[in-house]
């Protein structure tokens, strides 16, 4: 049986956040990046011979296990070992639906264990020795000029062939 909908089903975060921040008194809406042209790199070798890396928007907790707004505003990309698999990441100050769900299960947003399962099954050649974290930065230029090149550098150091990016 079908459902009846007068609007598209999926939420437009561009529309929703624009209206929300306008209600908070921000006069200039955020300008989301748009490209007409999209790059495309096919897999360079079969997946069963490839090394796969992971990128998350989750934040590495500081030694106290918490993260402050001050840290969040100045944060950089990071790389951390995949083994042993991380048990949790800090997500409290990030943008996600805290009423509808939770992030207590790290496997729901950073699939280290799932990737290890695919390696064990022979589907993927190997997992990168490190996973990588990027800030969801308001500044597109910081993402393009600093964070993205840093992630590429780490991927190359780790011999990564393909990357799964999981966005909170």
């Amino acid at each position, binding site marked *: 049986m079908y459902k009846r909908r007068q609007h598209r*089903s999926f939420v437009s975060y561009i529309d929703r956040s624009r209206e929300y921040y306008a209600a*908070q008194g921000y006069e200039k809406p955020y300008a989301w990046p*748009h490209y*007409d042209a999209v*790059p495309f*790199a096919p897999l360079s070798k079969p997946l069963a011979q490839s090394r796969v890396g992971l990128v998350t928007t989750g934040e590495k907790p500081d030694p106290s296990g918490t993260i402050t707004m001050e840290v969040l505003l100045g944060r950089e990309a990071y790389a951390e070992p995949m083994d042993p698999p991380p048990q949790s990441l800090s997500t409290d100050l990030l943008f996600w*639906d805290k009423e509808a769900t939770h992030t207590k299960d790290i496997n729901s947003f950073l699939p280290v264990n799932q990737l290890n399962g695919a390696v064990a099954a022979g589907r993927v050649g190997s997992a990168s020795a490190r996973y990588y974290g990027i800030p969801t930065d308001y500044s597109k230029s910081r993402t393009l000029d600093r964070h*993205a090149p840093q992630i590429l550098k780490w*991927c190359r150091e780790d011999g990564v062939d393909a990357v799964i*990016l999981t966005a909170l």
Partner: protein
Amino acid sequence: MSLVARHLEENGLATVIVGSARDVVEECGVPRFLFSDFPLGNPCGKPWDVPMQQAIMNMALDLLESAWTPRTTVQTPFCWDNDDWRDNFMRVDDTNREVLAKEGEARRKFQAEMKKGQ
């Protein structure tokens, strides 16, 4: 995240984004996108649902292998338990307009103080 995927791809690494903010990712334009129509927070599957999480990983790997052209979006077959979140997230209406305006004011004050301290 989309900008990072594009950068990696421009430099020869195949990528797939796994996420739930469909309009944000597609508006930017990425090579491969595995979309779950979930509230933001669990792009890899519902918490503690191991079979769903492994299935989503397998679909991401399928997409890496099978996409032949950029802007390939695949939607997973999974549904959230209810649809309430669709309207509730970042809702703006007469019940919260005043609160939101005050929150914005406080945030701008905090940001101004942060700038001064730098």
